[in-house]
């Protein structure tokens, strides 16, 4: 039974490397179009389709993604 999940990106920590976008199997992460206070365009959850597989949080170099199971 696939899980339903949700991710939250810490925009203070995200450096806009987008490794998470590359590895997400459901393509449910995108680039935000507002920049953070560090000047990066952080990653952003599109809002649906997350299966809480943890791929994004595993590849994130900055511990900037929290993954929740709903």
């Amino acid at each position, binding site marked *: 039974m696939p899980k339903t999940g949700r991710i939250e990106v810490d925009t203070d920590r995200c450096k806009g*490397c987008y*490794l998470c*976008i590359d590895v997400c199997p459901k393509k449910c992460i995108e680039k935000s179009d507002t920049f953070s206070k560090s000047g990066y365009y952080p990653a952003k959850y599109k809002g649906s389709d997350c299966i809480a597989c943890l791929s994004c*949080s595993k590849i994130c170099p*900055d*511990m900037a993604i929290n993954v929740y*199971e709903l």
Partner: protein
Amino acid sequence: MQLLNKKPKSLFDVQMHYCPGCGHGIVHRLVAEVMDELNIRERTIFIAPVGCSVFADMYFNCDAIQGAHGRGPAIATGIKRSKPDTIVISYQGDGDLASIGMAEIVHAAARNENITVVFINNAIYGMTGGQMAPTTLIGQKSTTTVSGRDPKVNGYPIKVCELLSALEGTRYAERTTVHNVAGVIKTKNAIKKAIKNQINNVGFSIVEILSMCPTNWGLSNNPSQAIKYIDEQMVKIFPPGVYKDIK
């Protein structure tokens, strides 16, 4: 709603100074997770090298020491032989380990020092701005090989796992990557095994991790493209796998 990924206690929850897309952040977290899971945080001594990870002594929530370029394995020898109850991790980059520190790593392995070496191979010198490393690929551009590494001038990349596996003292040598999730999982397992070897007095263990350096590979505009260089080029020259695993 349940949080599935907790931040490891063994790493301070601070922003680290690494470039976007750099592999150091991933490996730091994996080492910290293993330290938590094996419950060794209170007896770990982390040795930070000279290189991009020079400040790693500040990031880890354990006793730490920052040492001279390449000398981590010698420092580890001094610490481990004086305080055998500690778990000593020498964290090194490719300049630190395979250039200036080549004698120290070879001899620590030859002596079968009961330590764990985490070796970040990104085929370039990061901290000093992108010069050739001993692991730079033939044809790879760097600030000291502007037309690409030419074997006639600069010789051939050094394959550390293969080299150290030839030494009788080496107990465990595995090469992994952090350019995809499968690689990240393999890397964590390898680090765990390498540290368990130290806990169980098995002996010298090294994990070589192929890592991204978007900034010095000319990919700062598009850091996630760095995974292609590992996937398409680096794994051909530095094949991932277990090179030695003996008790």
